[in-house]
């Protein structure tokens, strides 16, 4: 069952200068979908347009059968669509716990104490750092906090913009292992990544975005094994498979 989809999405910051040019992608329930592509292909703009941060000029975004194309960014989280930006994704001058409380507090009917307890059980590191300012965390810890902040509201779909950017290989492994655990809890994931190898290792399906629209689509494994796609778009050399 499709939970999130875009149809012929055209979006960009300047009118008449679209960065996303007719992209159609789909995420099924419980699926991890990866969006890959060369620099400037519009991967990041696609995910931001879905999140409501880049103006959409035509096409539609559908979440659980409901058209959310025109919904303002701050309302999308209420519909169950969470987004983790690539950088500056925590409030640096608030403590770890305040970051989490702020996110959960958007939902007036949720039990804050219970939400925090569940999140700390999932992310024990954050429990230890609850009182620290988010700005004092390392890059990897910030990514964990940003993901925890998105997950604390129990979204149906989690979108992440390059969670591996700037992280050491060890942390990349940890973050991606976490994403697999998250999927086990029934959350669908849409992931934009430069690190094709790590992303395809956990992804179910993948799209290769070229010049603002999807050029290839298929099971994650087969894209990685396709020598032409791998060499052209994923930065994999023939001899290094």
């Amino acid at each position, binding site marked *: 069952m499709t939970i999130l989809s875009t149809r012929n999405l055209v979006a960009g910051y300047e009118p008449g200068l679209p960065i996303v040019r007719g992209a159609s992608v789909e995420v099924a329930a419980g699926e991890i979908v990866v969006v890959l592509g060369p620099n400037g292909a519009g991967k990041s703009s696609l995910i931001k347009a879905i*999140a*409501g*941060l880049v103006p959409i000029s035509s096409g539609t975004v559908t979440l659980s059968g409901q058209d959310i194309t025109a919904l*303002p*960014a*701050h*309302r*999308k*989280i*209420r519909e169950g669509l969470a*987004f983790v*930006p690539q950088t*500056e*994704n*925590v*409030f*640096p*001058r*608030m403590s770890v716990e*305040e970051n989490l*409380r*702020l*996110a959960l*507090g*958007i939902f*007036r009917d949720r039990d804050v104490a219970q939400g925090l307890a569940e999140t700390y059980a999932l992310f024990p590191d954050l429990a230890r750092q609850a009182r620290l300012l988010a700005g004092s965390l390392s890059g990897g810890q910030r990514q964990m906090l940003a993901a925890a*902040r998105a997950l604390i*509201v129990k979204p149906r779909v989690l979108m992440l913009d390059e969670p591996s950017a700037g992280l050491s290989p060890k942390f990349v492994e940890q973050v991606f292992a976490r994403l697999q655990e998250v999927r086990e809890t029934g959350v669908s994931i849409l992931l934009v990544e430069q690190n094709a190898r790590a992303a395809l290792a956990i992804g179910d399906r993948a799209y290769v975005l070229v010049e603002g629209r999807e050029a290839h689509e298929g099971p994650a494994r087969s894209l990685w094994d396709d020598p032409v796609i791998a060499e052209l778009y994923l930065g994999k050399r023939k001899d290094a498979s």
Partner: protein
Amino acid sequence: MSLQFLLDGAISGSMIGLGAIGITLTYSILRFSNFAHGDLMAWGAYAALVAVGAIGGLLGGIAPIGPLSFGLPLILATLVAMAIASAIALALDWMLFARLRAKGQAIIVVMASFGASMALRNLLEFFFTSSPVYYSNALQIAKPLGFGIRITPDQIALLAMTFALVTVMHLYLTRSQRGREMRAYAQDPALARVVGIDVRAVIRATWLVGAALAAAAGVMVGVLVQVRPLMGLDLLLPMFAAAILGGIGSVPGAVLAGLVIGLSEAAAVQFIGAEWRAGVSFVILMAVLLIRPTGLFGVTER
């Protein structure tokens, strides 16, 4: 030498600090210097003046509380004044600032606030003339505190009220959801939208809180000094100096810096001469901008 200037400075400093809270919030959240803030203060003072007359007329003469110069009517009138000042701020935002903000140039909004300031002030002069008025003609007997310092009952009450308002404000910003949203929006507007914060609600809360505190400060100045159309404008520079010295966005910083400026002004009057009072804020403002632009509690903008 009398140490009275310390008390005088602390009292005018707490009024400055209370007013600076609104300035520091609008600056950090709406990202512009609101030069009309002082006039919201004056409008608050006049709104309370009208309300106190109306309440007194409705309820009949009510005696002041204990040794104070004012009673329940002025306390109720202050609440009315806070509501009216908030309504004026929201109306100004809807008519003027929101439309200009949408065009994206902060300097235009700042210029508009100059215009709004003049219009608000001239309206007050039109309705109430520019002669000063008072909430009460009662004379207050100052009690000696020792070290040559004397304090009136009104001054004690208003210092306590300032302390209470600042404490409530601090708790609101640090413990309530809306307060957290305001701080989050000031830190990163784009991320605020991502986590689901309704920007319009945050902006409304900013005006409500800032204008209500300005009105409260206006009434206090009215009680301790007098009510004049220019009362807000006269405090504008000290309030801006306090907001900047305290570090933009910091409520405790604004209050502490208000006290520093009030005390410095009083010290200047005591040791240099009364004509230097107005220069103090300017000197402090320049010194902060040159030496430590982030202020006492500020942080470097990314």
